[in-house]
């Protein structure tokens, strides 16, 4: 059982923000992961079903430590540590901490599979997407990837900047000294296979040949089995803790888990994620805000709805407009 449980609410923040440069052109971007955990999220609970949180504790203290009480440490001798602050790590190479400087462009298919490590999407920052689109379009046309190193969270990464369907991604690559060759492993020299045995394998390969990849093969069967068991328990009512009537807890358990895809979709279109409305009917808009809205004319309300991109605004009555605007935190 791997640690695939989330104890805390997930908030999707960029992994890195800075600029991609080629020549003197700079493209402000943020990096978001292109992979996510499996969709199944099991929460840690106690025997009564209350949600638990992971906290950190010091050696002598029984009080949990807050984030500002924690610091990164390096063990330079057994049980002896030095602390390392984020600003010290950034200062080791300030340029690479905020810049991905593409110094060379290589053919896309020259990259060996062994080197690929992780993938991040680049979303444009700043007022214009022109430089972003120019780089994406040129990389696509030339079938090339830009290569650079940059520093993110205390580590230097080698990366290839690739364009697909007008979207830029950074594929982090392993450094040459992180990849082993067959010789380094100590694999024996190739010898000629027995002709009959080769023919037998060739026949087996032919028999198993298909023309497409069946994506069902890559489905998460483990999660599916767990969901099946859990749904069965929910139907039968065994080992079930019903949702607490306390609305805040429901909100915490569902609404803060924001789908990565949703964040990417919005950020690629240059939108910052708006605060999500609480789950379902949970919260009544604050009366003062509603009163303020009531004092406005319908035309004024409509104008506000337009600026806030409220969907279906043209068909709304004054009361509906107030409701929609109040829900937007106005």
């Amino acid at each position, binding site marked *: 059982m791997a640690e695939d449980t989330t*104890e805390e609410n997930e908030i999707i923040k960029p992994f890195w923000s800075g*600029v991609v440069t080629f020549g003197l052109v700079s493209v402000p971007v943020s990096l978001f992961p292109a992979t996510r955990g499996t969709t199944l999220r099991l*929460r840690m609970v106690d025997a009564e*079903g209350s949600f638990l949180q992971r*906290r950190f504790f010091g050696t002598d203290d029984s009080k949990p430590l807050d984030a500002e009480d924690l610091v990164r440490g390096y063990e330079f001798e057994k049980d002896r540590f030095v602390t390392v602050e984020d600003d010290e790590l950034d200062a080791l190479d300030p340029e690479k901490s905020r810049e991905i400087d593409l110094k060379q462009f290589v053919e896309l298919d020259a990259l060996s599979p062994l080197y690929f490590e992780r993938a991040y999407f680049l979303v444009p920052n700043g007022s214009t997407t022109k430089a972003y689109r120019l780089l994406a379009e040129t990389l696509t046309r030339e079938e090339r990837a830009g*290569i650079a190193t940059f*520093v993110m969270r205390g580590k230097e990464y080698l990366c290839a900047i690739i364009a697909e369907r007008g979207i830029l991604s950074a594929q982090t690559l392993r450094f040459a000294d992180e990849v082993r060759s067959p010789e380094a*492993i100590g694999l024996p020299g190739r010898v000629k296979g027995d002709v009959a045995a080769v023919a037998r394998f060739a026949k087996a390969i032919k028999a198993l040949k298909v023309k497409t990849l069946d994506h069902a093969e890559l489905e998460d069967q483990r999660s599916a089995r767990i969901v099946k068991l859990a749904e069965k328990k929910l139907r039968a009512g065994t080992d079930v803790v019903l949702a607490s009537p306390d609305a805040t807890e429901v909100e915490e358990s569902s609404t803060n888990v924001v789908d990565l895809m949703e964040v990417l979709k919005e950020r690629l279109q240059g939108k910052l994620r708006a605060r999500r409305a609480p789950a379902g009917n949970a919260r009544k808009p604050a009366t003062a805000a509603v009163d303020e809205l009531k004092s406005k004319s319908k035309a004024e309300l409509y104008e506000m709805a337009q600026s806030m991109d409220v969907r279906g605004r043209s068909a709304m009555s004054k009361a509906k407009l107030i409701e929609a605007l109040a829900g937007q935190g106005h």
Partner: protein
Amino acid sequence: MAARAMWKAVIQCGQSEVPVKLYSAIEDRNIHFRVLSRKDKQPVHGAMVNPETGKIVPHAETRRAYVADNGDRAILDASELTALEPEPSRNIDIVAFLPNELIDHHWYDRPYYLGPDGNGAAYFAFTEAIESSALQGLARWVMRGKAYMGALRLHQGYPLLMSLKLSDEVVAVENLEAPGGAVLNPKELDMARQLIGMLAAELDLSAFQDAYRDRVLNLVKAKAEGGPRLKLVKGSPKKPSDDLERALHASLKSARKSA
């Protein structure tokens, strides 16, 4: 220096078997930090806490909960989850052979070399048959309690098993929409093409070294010896190019000069 095998297995391909040993094709060279408490500079330990009571819940008393959309929770205990784990096996089952281009970097997870276990007769015959087929195998196996899918292909003449991500884990670029905006200026596109052409190179990853790793090690060494705190250099962030055409023009000029 020969590497140690991490697992022994038998490839099942049709009616034939190939005994193999599995080796990691990559090496972890990251610097590992620990989380310390600021107060005494000693490592911290994590524990699960009930936020209502503030009490630590020992690991043995924790359960997992599946939370339905309406907030209802189904409690699962460790034995139930273990029962759902795949049967242990030594087999690497080849389920299909398919063209190489059908599985690309979006799916790659971790690469492993396969070496012969025993005299290698089947191993080398199998390797040769894959080579002449120009196909890759799609493999399924269970290692240390976890089920894997992988692509089996040759790398530098040896079988390489690349474990693959699950479909839920990959955000498909097909589901996203590229940033929009005004049509790009053909002149700027042409300059960008020229610039990238001038910076075109043969791939040589050995030319890129992780120099930062050494800097981090030097930093911690200096701090361990009680040296003065380093002066922190802060550069100013680059200004984004407002005038794209001018930036491209200047780039081309300086690239020509250094060529």
